[in-house]
């Protein structure tokens, strides 16, 4: 059925070159040995383990060795993966591996004694498990059986997994061990790439700005034309606030001294942070609440005045209190748990009848819609009312991250490119102090868990679904990005704020005798260094074949009427389409004349429509939707219940029953990819003809194809490959929902559980 034969996974490709180990160069690699990263050690292992593949039969089960390391659970087998394989390969993880930080719950079962137990850290197990079930945070469920394994070893492995997946301290996360090892042995590089640093953003080699430096912020100011804003360095060395970045942007009229003074009044000393400037001069600012009641009014006034002064029209500031109009993090977490229950745990058939109302009852889509709606309304304020928007939230580091990024994705096409999107996550999440450690719950002891980042990706997915040609990246990219937050290697998603990285890693460095020099803390691998995880070919899965890039030569082809886009979206703004949008960076001469001079000229024209008709928000949205979409301008979400959908690839990819074999939207994408590749090929031949260059450059250029699927010669009309399915490039095979534990339906254990599967729900333990 799944006939595509892939080469057997060679461990070599992610085996690390070790200078003192000669076995690597030998052609035959010893089988059933785990592949270890620098700093990774085997904690425990057990042989003769059976990995269950299908729910109803054991005929596909795999035999192998189960290994627990300080990084992952690894199942090593000689057996080829039956049925359908994955169509990408994570270089850090084998086909059957689960990173420890991706584990949600560990359940051990003894069939004969009819016992089961959820394993916490440092717990005892009074029975020998016959079965181990791992519930993963990415909705997978993996199951191992120990019928033929040594009972004691099996038990030890289970306990080891429980222990190592629930570390008591941040510094016990594998990333620290890894980075420590790299610092001690700089020769050990994963896939030959320097694990530290910004890394390569995409195939074109563009770097993702990390916003760790003054210059990144300064460039962003220039890119968006925010001339009345400046980079402020008062927090250098985290002297003011430990949850703010070292550099951030403030109104030019606010002096450092004032800022220092005001900072005491804000929760977490989180002063207002500039996010982005609209070409019409309206700014997007995020701000924590002012805790000092006496000073509240005065400081608020001063801040708002400063923001107003930084606006070319001196327009008022529009404040949006996110705590009042959006679901809170607990509600989002509750919705996520319900969604997880519904998508993975409940028996497929039993949920069918009431699927739609059950889905509604999770409220997940309702919240997705709430974020999209509120962000769209704030887009309206900036775009039409020409006011600066201040996102106000208690600490200003949860809902604000989501709202601020969504607004920018809608308004600025740069953030719809891969590098732009990554820089947005750096700017509004990582640097702004989104508490990845707590919200992802890497240490599994926090009641602060909340999938806000996933909610953001889901909202972006909705926009991608509605405007598929507006994004450079694909939904596979979004899904893999979500998965990457569960791999405890990337500094990006490991900390609650930049300061925590510096503090914790400095402590760690001292304890490990690592010389830091003048570096601020250890440098962790960056998730944007995609080559750490994927081959360049697999990274092509990130590319959206439908994307119409501004720089793509095809678009500028004058002969084609189809590509002429109206540039209406910025028409109501002062300066038309910002030149910034070309490459993300403005060059100085592209700046338009000083704002003040322009205002005088454009002001009458500018306010006419506003006075002529009641420019209500609803009217604006209605008019906007009636117009053809400019994919390089604003995009606004359709918000009707019929248009907000469930992100099936992300949530259903492990559910075998929900998989459409040989189908799904990927089959249409496959066709588009082939055609886009063909067009690329022709374009290259054309250029080659024109430049009369030799054929030599041809081959290397061919390799640079942007498409994962390539045309097999021109006009490739061959059908879709057999392996395409609605789960592509993932596969539900081997990730199974267990229907029952000892005859009791799984849902019985789990329903009513506050946490997905809490210890209490399985009270019947030893």
């Amino acid at each position, binding site marked *: 059925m799944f006939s595509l034969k892939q080469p057997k996974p060679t461990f070599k490709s992610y085996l690390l070159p070790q200078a003192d180990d000669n076995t690597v160069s030998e052609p035959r690699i010893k089988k059933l040995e785990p592949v270890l990263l620098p700093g990774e050690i085997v904690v425990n292992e057990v042989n003769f383990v059976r990995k269950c593949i299908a729910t109803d039969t054991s005929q596909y089960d795999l035999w192998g060795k189960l290994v627990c390391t300080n990084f992952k659970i690894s199942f090593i087998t000689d057996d080829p993966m039956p049925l359908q394989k994955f169509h990408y390969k994570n270089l850090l993880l084998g086909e059957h591996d689960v990173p420890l930080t991706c584990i949600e719950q560990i359940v051990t079962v003894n069939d004969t004694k009819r016992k089961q137990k959820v394993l916490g850290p440092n717990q005892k197990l009074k029975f020998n498990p016959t079965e181990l079930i791992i519930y993963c945070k990415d909705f997978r469920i993996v199951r191992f059986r120990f019928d033929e394994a040594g009972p004691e070893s099996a038990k030890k492995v289970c306990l080891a997994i429980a222990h190592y997946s629930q570390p008591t301290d941040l510094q016990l996360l594998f990333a620290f061990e890894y980075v420590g090892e790299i610092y001690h042995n700089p020769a050990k590089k994963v896939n030959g790439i320097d694990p530290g640093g910004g890394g390569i953003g995409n195939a074109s080699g563009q770097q993702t700005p990390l916003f760790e430096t003054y210059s990144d912020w300064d460039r962003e100011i220039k890119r968006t034309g925010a001339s009345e804003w400046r980079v402020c360095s008062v927090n250098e060395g985290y002297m003011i606030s430990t949850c703010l970045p070292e550099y951030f942007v403030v109104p030019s009229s606010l002096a450092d001294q004032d800022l220092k003074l005001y900072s005491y009044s804000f929760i977490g000393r989180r002063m207002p942070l500039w996010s982005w400037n609209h070409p019409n001069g309206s700014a997007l600012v995020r701000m924590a609440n002012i805790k000092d009641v006496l000073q509240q009014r005065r400081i608020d006034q001063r801040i708002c005045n400063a923001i107003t002064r930084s606006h070319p029209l001196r327009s008022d500031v529009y404040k949006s209190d996110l705590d009042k109009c959006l679901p809170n993090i607990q509600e989002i977490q509750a919705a996520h748990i319900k969604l997880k229950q519904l998508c993975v745990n409940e028996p497929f058939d039993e949920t*069918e009848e*009431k699927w*739609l109302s059950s*889905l*509604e009852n999770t409220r997940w889509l309702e919240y997705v819609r709430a974020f999209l709606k509120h962000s769209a309304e704030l887009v309206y304020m900036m775009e039409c009312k020409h006011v600066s928007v201040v996102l106000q939230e208690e600490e200003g580091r949860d809902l604000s991250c989501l709202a601020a990024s969504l607004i920018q994705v809608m308004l600025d096409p740069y953030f719809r490119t891969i590098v732009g999107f990554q820089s947005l996550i750096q700017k509004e999440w990582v640097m702004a102090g989104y508490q990845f450690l707590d919200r992802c719950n890497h240490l599994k002891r926090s009641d602060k868990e909340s999938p806000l980042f996933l909610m953001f990706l889901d909202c972006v997915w909705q926009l991608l679904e509605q*405007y*598929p*040609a507006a994004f450079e990246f694909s939904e596979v990219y979004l899904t893999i990005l979500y998965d990457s937050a569960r791999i405890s290697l990337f500094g990006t998603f490991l900390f609650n704020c930049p300061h925590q990285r510096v503090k914790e890693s400095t402590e760690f460095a001292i304890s490990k005798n690592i010389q830091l020099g003048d570096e601020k803390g250890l440098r962790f691998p960056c998730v944007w260094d995609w080559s750490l995880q994927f081959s360049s070919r697999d990274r092509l899965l990130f590319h959206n074949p*439908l994307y119409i890039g501004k720089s793509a030569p095809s678009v500028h*082809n004058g*002969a*084609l*009427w*189809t*590509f*002429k*886009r*109206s540039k*209406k979206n910025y028409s109501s703004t002062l300066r038309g389409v910002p030149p910034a949008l070309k490459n993300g960076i403005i060059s100085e001469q592209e700046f338009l004349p000083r704002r003040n001079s322009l205002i005088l000229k454009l002001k009458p024209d500018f306010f006419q429509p506003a006075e002529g008709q009641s420019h209500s928000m609803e009217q604006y949205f*209605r*008019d906007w*939707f*009636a*117009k*053809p*979409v400019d994919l390089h301008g604003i995009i606004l979400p*359709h918000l*009707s*219940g*019929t*248009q907000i959908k469930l992100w*099936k690839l992300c949530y259903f990819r492990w559910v075998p*029953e*929900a*998989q*459409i*074999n*040989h*189908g799904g939207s990927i*089959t*249409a994408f*496959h*066709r*588009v990819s082939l*055609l*886009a590749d063909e*067009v690329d090929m*022709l374009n290259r*031949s*054309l250029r080659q*003809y*024109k430049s009369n260059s030799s054929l030599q450059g041809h081959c290397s250029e061919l390799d640079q194809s942007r498409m994962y699927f390539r045309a097999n*010669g*021109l*006009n490739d*009309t*061959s*059908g*879709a490959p057999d392996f395409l399915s*609605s789960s592509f490039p993932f596969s539900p095979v081997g990730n199974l929902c267990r229907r029952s534990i000892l005859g009791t339906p799984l849902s019985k254990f789990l329903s009513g559980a506050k946490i997905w599967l809490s210890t209490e729900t399985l009270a019947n333990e030893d």
Partner: protein
Amino acid sequence: MIRKLAENTPKTWACSIIEADQAPIPGMASSSTPKYNSNSLESSSSKWTLKDGTNWEQNEEIPRLPGETRVTDKDVIYMCPFNGPVKGRVYITNYRLYLRSVENDPVVILNVPLGVISRIEKMGGASSRGENSYGLDITCKDMRNLRFALKQEGHSRRDIFEVLTKYAFPQSHNSLFFAFVNEEKFSENGWMVYNPMSEYRRQGLPNERWRVTFINEHYGLCDTYPSLLVVPYNATDDDLKKVAAFRSRNRIPVLSWIHPETQAVIMRCSQPLVGMSGKRNKDDERYLDIIREANGQISKLTIYDARPNVNAVANKATGGGYEGEDAYPNAELFFLDIHNIHVMRESLKKLKDIVYPNVEESHWLSSLESTHWLEHIKLVLTGAIQVADKVSSGRSSVLVHCSDGWDRTAQLTSLAMLMLDSYYRTIEGFEVLVQKEWISFGHKFASRIGHGDKNHADADRSPIFLQFIDCVWQMSKQFPTAFEFNEQFLITILDHLYSCRFGTFLYNSEFLREKEKVTEKTLSLWSLINSEKSKYTNPFYSKEVNRALYPVASMRHLELWVNYYIRWNPRIRQQQPNPVEQRYMELLALRDDYIRRLEELQITNNSKISNSSASSTSPSQMVSQVQTHF
């Protein structure tokens, strides 16, 4: 090549206007806003808006088809549920109701074939107070209502009401359907699309086990079956007559489709006349055994009774029933739990309540669930999957029936055939499928749709065919490259299911259609479609032979067909064209442009360099390949 294409674009646009006039797909009125369009985009966007029948050409004549005559016109106020009252003039012809606004900019156009009208009601009286309280309310069969307000003086609505009633319901006024006066000409003749003999030959029939019988040539055996039937070779015409006596309305088991490899067949029929006393019929029992043996099958014959078990039992009271175990030991019976026409009608009514004029937003998903529409779709698809899987993987012949074998049975056999036979996924193949399993086998289109019949509350009406098309749409969503036709094709079929412009869906049976000389006196819908196939072609289609296509009949994947059911609402309509499709078309144009330019360059280069090394991507090869493609 591409430059030519670009130059032609305005012409294409002009064509599409004319086309839209010829093919007035029931249109919505909306104040779509061409004024926003920049020139470069106007052509494409207007083209698409026209598909909805909306039009804003200022000095345009009232569209008229050859044979269409103007009857009356009147000043009215169209009560648009989305944009408020619209002053306009309504023109009524023997085919359509056409409204053009007089003040709005852009012009609001309403273009509705009278066949779409289900019911015309007067609202308010001569003495009604309040603005726009006096007028007409028109219920349409295509998920919308139209309201017109008229002046109260001089009973101004009386004549328009009478004219509308007369022309919308010709069956109730002893007059002809428009299809019989339509004088359109098409380059293709759609009546030639389906020839039962060649379709059976395509399937490899007759063969040594299956024969063609002309026993029903004059509809003597069964007046709701086609004249040509395929039956087991080992059953004589006499046997068939005896079997007919035991099957409801003489609809005996006959062959619909044969699997090219397994030789397993899909048979269709009506319920056996078992009755309360549990009657048996040796001939019927033997006949089913002959069917089973015809593909050399040792295992049992699988019978799918489309109904819920209880309904099948209840049917015994009226003389029907199902094949009992005792009487048919060599058969296995499964019930597929698909509800009857009345349940489906009510379900669609509920669906309309939540989508028209406004979409129920507060609890959209649970509201949708409470209509059960998708659940019914799911059951029909699940049933068809079982039938297809049994024939293909189970290598077993199946017999499908419901009560009369013309509603649920048609759904199941045609969908199973669509899953198993890629031919039916082409434009022509699908036309053949509809023509064969629905039209020729007596799906009672006239009764289910109520063509030209004023009795809007008739209990015989039911959206069975719509449900089938919805199932096809669901499949095309799950397999975007498997069907040669696009969404517009399906919507066009549904629009003309009601329009009465073509003879295709008129009358209940082949027998009646022959009596009314439909093929001589009317045009086929397939003439319209096949004359402009490109409009109905799915750009992503990639031809695949002999791949069974099993959709996932799960609520997780089934979706409401927004572009059909909510198409009148300008706020919900999805982007047209579909952006993925649009991008693909752009790329196609780009490719052609590059190929043309490469070709040009090559010609100039060839004059300089002779015999340049032939690489696999040499332009000449590219070009030849492309040409074969087109």
